[in-house]
């Protein structure tokens, strides 16, 4: 079959251009001393300096990262236990019910999650702020972890567990020495996805955060509504570099682990 033709290349090129244009547009103007996103006057680092001088903004970045790390860690723990519970569930009906319930939050629109959690926290009397944001992020990350871990657990042959028992492993040994190492790639993928979901979330946080606690997304929203400031541009430049770094790191890790864990032979 023919490879990529001229027309196909052009099409792909156009899609790439449009996908990256806004990002590079932002970064381009982050070096503009003019202070607007319309005419480029001269090159400057001042907006980047402004980011690092803005202690409030740095606090918010710090909050965002803390929420992301903590929530993904907790969500991964609950999710892995959940996947194990689903796999060991003997009752087929209960099992498929659990799976459907698991997927509800994945397909639910953010607005629904945000609004319903807002009601939940108010009903429970939880003060809106760090706790409510953290708990919400844990809550919407759990099902993703389950979905990442479950296929690994299902693909694992039962005879591996039999073999471990046969070789003298107790229930705890089986879990820590066989199951967990086996599903490790799934756990990492789940953790990583939870991390990005948390970092990326705007809508849910917007609903359940209170005065005095803000994450980056919410902050950018209010800055953007207030009008254009090139501090945001500088921030996007920084975030872009961090994101690309993370993605490439994950990609490299994934490629290596693929040969390590799935036993794909060359």
């Amino acid at each position, binding site marked *: 079959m023919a490879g990529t033709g001229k027309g196909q290349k052009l099409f792909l090129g156009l899609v790439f251009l449009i996908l990256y244009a806004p990002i590079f547009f932002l970064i381009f103007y982050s070096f503009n001393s003019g202070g607007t996103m319309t005419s480029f006057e001269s090159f400057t680092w001042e907006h980047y300096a402004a980011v690092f001088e803005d202690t409030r903004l740095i606090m918010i970045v710090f909050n965002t990262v803390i929420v992301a790390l903590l929530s993904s860690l907790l969500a991964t723990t609950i999710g892995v236990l959940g996947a194990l519970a689903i796999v060991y569930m003997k009752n087929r009906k209960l099992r498929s019910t659990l799976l459907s319930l698991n997927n509800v939050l994945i397909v639910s629109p953010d607005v629904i999650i945000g609004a319903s959690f807002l009601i939940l926290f108010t009903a429970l009397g939880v003060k809106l702020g760090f706790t409510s944001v953290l708990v919400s992020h844990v809550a919407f990350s759990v099902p993703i972890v389950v979905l990442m871990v479950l296929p690994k657990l299902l693909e694992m*042959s039962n*005879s*591996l567990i*039999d*073999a*471990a*028992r*046969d*070789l*003298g*492993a*107790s229930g705890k*040994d089986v879990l820590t*020495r*066989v199951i967990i*190492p*086996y599903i*490790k790639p799934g756990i990492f993928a789940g953790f990583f996805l939870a991390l990005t979901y948390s970092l990326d979330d705007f809508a849910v946080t917007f609903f359940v955060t209170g005065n005095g606690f803000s994450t980056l997304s919410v902050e950018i929203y209010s800055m953007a509504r207030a009008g254009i400031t090139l501090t945001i541009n500088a921030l996007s430049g920084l975030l872009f570099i961090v994101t690309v770094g993370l993605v490439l790191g994950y990609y490299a890790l994934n490629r290596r682990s693929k*040969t*390590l*864990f*799935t*036993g*794909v*032979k060359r």
Partner: protein
Amino acid sequence: MTKQPIIRFDGVSKRYGDDATILDDISFEMERGKFYTLLGPSGCGKTTILRLIAGFIEPTAGQILFDGKNINDVPPNERQVNTVFQDYALFPHLNVFENVAFGLRIKKVKGPEVKRRVEEALRFVNLEGYGGREISEMSGGQRQRVAIARAIVNDPEVILLDEPLSALDLKLRTEMQYELRELQQRLGKTFIFVTHDQEEALAMSDEIFVMNAGQIIQSGTPIDIYDEPISRFVADFIGESNIVDGVMIRDQLVLFAGKEFECVDAGLDPNEKIEVVIRPEDLEITSPEKGKLVVTVDTQLFRGVHYELSTYDKDGNEWLVHSTKKAQVGDEIGLDFDPEAIHVMRLNESEEDFDRRLESYEVTGHAE
């Protein structure tokens, strides 16, 4: 011999729910240091016996004794039994060394001791120096050996092998048959081997248990079972056979294919309806005049060491012949055989009755 059997099944049954009976009231004994094979078609319950011994499942009824002690309630991790799994069940996240060391690590054996024993086990299965390899880098035959090393390193009393050769190609399978047999003799441990391949069973075992539909149909040495199958099922399952209906006229005289023949069987009722087995390799091609049976050659295949002829007598019975001589398709030929080649099977005879009857006339009959 007063030696305690290493494994004894006492009226063991295994049922799932009310309907599915996998094993039906099975009793047997296994001696220390022998190579046993459980042979039967898929679904006959042979793997279930293995899983009962390993402890992955519990019997519904009956007792399983290990070295004289009831082990019904002993979990698998506390039994002195190790299994070589059909799919090997090697841990993909551990390398060869750590796979073999798994059991020792669980028992918290000291580092240098682990190294010594793992290396010894790897040497035993001819995998010296492969410890650092990943499982994904090993071939099918090598994985097989890792699985065996992982079982023997724990020094179990009994090693269970669940169709371990089924995933290998023909050549490798034959090689591994030799190796397994030799390994068992060097280790002196009890091996219990499950297979549906009669050739494997005949080649390796000290004793074969032929199973069907949750029951042990016949047990004995490979030669016994091959030469004296108890029933049509066993005769059919082990090797190729010609089986025809007949009548036992009296001791040492049997009627089949419209003729009376001299044979060595005895102890049956006069004029009892029976089945007759003659192995294809016991049939000799000769001229129609000299032949005890006269048949027409239907097809002929060259099988390498012999020709395989499918022939029919005038009653329409098929006679399979393995012969180094050639014939012409469509020709009429004679078939000759010794009285010893005729094996008479009683319908629905139990294994005990069968053994008793065999003993009663074998003393006077052909010597063993």
